[in-house]
């Protein structure tokens, strides 16, 4: 269908673009699955009750219930009765890697790089602003994240992820921070695959040390460049990993996130 492609028309159509025909329950379900993939929800975590979940997500209780039924059917949550009962995350082998690998293998390089560009735009701008705004106390907090790192603490997210989130907040922009959080569950969750590689992880923690030095020296340009370097390294690792896993096969049955299935070869 021919369309007026003037910038205004494009913006206008983005406003009135279809919200998608996915049911609300499916969207609740997808939220929780991406929370699992991002490592925000871990094996054994208790989910809020149906009514809490419904009020927090702004949906009807019935919708929340429907989503939980579906998650249960997929084996991602388990509900127990009784005093200490509730709905808990259950991950086979306590491992979210397989969800992430499925997702990675369903992505083309073009899509992956595009996501990375978006993430880098936000994260590096935040770093640039943070370098102009951070005080000594902020630097101490960031240093603690890097120093308290190794084993144990890292279960709920990578040291680098925590560091970059804290850095995003230091931009003093609520919008940038929210966007960073949103992208972090998206791109950052894929990067978790790279951070599971100890060599990559320690090299990137070192890179964060250099970013912190730039913040502390109030050098916005250098902070910006180093965050860009981090994202580039991450993308290279992910693409190399795709290649290691062979030509990515699209597995419609296992595509657990809302991403459209794409051919990657």
């Amino acid at each position, binding site marked *: 269908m021919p369309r007026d492609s003037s910038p205004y028309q494009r913006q206008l159509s983005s406003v009135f673009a279809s919200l998608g025909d996915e049911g609300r329950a499916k969207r609740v379900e997808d939220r929780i699955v991406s929370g699992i993939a991002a490592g925000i*929800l*871990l094996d054994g*975590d*208790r*989910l*809020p009750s149906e009514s*809490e979940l419904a*009020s*927090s997500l702004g949906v009807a209780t019935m919708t929340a219930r429907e989503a939980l039924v579906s998650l249960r059917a997929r084996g991602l949550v388990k509900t127990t009765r009784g005093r200490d009962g509730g709905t808990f995350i259950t991950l086979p082998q306590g491992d979210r890697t397989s969800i992430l690998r499925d997702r990675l293998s369903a992505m083309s390089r073009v899509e992956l790089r595009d996501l990375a560009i978006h993430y880098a735009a936000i994260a590096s701008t935040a770093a640039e602003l943070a370098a102009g*705004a951070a*005080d000594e*106390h902020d630097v101490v*907090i960031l240093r*603690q994240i890097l120093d308290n790192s190794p084993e144990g*603490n890292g279960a*709920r997210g990578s040291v680098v992820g925590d560091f970059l*989130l804290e850095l*995003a*907040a*230091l*931009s*003093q*922009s*609520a919008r940038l*921070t*929210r966007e960073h*959080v949103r992208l972090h569950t998206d791109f950052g969750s894929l990067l978790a695959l790279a951070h599971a590689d100890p060599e990559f992880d320690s090299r990137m923690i070192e890179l964060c040390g250099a970013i912190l030095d730039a913040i502390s020296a109030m050098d916005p340009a250098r902070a910006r460049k180093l965050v860009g370097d981090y994202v580039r390294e991450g993308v290279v690792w992910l693409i190399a990993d795709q290649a290691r896993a062979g030509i990515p096969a699209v597995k419609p049955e296992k595509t657990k996130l809302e991403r459209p299935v794409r051919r990657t070869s």
Partner: protein
Amino acid sequence: MNQGKTTGNGAGADVSYFFESLLQDLHEWAGRMSRVFESREGAPGPQELDAQIHPLVDEFLDRKALPLVGAGFVAAKDALAGTPWHMAWWQGSTKERLLMLTVESAGETYSRREWFTVPLETGEGHITGPYVDFLCTDEYTLTLTVPVTANGTIVGVAGADVLVETIELLLMDRLKDIDPRATLLNGSGRVIVSADPQLAAGALLVRGWQGSDAASLPVADKDLGFDKVAVGRCGTLPLAIAVPA
């Protein structure tokens, strides 16, 4: 105008009064929380605490004096029975309960935050921010917290979140009355709200003002069109009003 001393009268006093009265209300409120602990043998468990704190929070959030975006009680480590960490916090116009999925995530979430650690360490009220609060409000926020003590021990903090834009709406005219370029600073010399269009909330204006008695101090940013400001303290609060000198 400000002779490098306290902003003792007029609009400056209004600005100080605004924060002093909010802290005082918080102290009074924290006293009522203390009684939840002191009125029983042994520490309460989280559910019992929530049931007793919730009406107090509702009442506090309903006050007409100042729109608060959230408020609640955050337990010190091991202050409650049966759980190391606990946060009873409600926010928003619908007073939505802030959800913490696991005990560990609650601990990780708040145990190193300034609004939690400072009142516990000093036993005094504290003003944190302005900062982007990605844990609770998701907005640019100022958090006021005071210690809650029971039988001589600090059992946690009582606190309230105020959006920086609320402060801007309420105090901008007061600042303009002081000087067309007057700026309210936090303890680290960061701008909370400024009458000067150049100065964004969050910008560092004057470093180290709290440790200085100088009549004027150099500004951190070189491109403002002025090099020095006179800093007037807001009473004993970790706040000051800066005016180009």
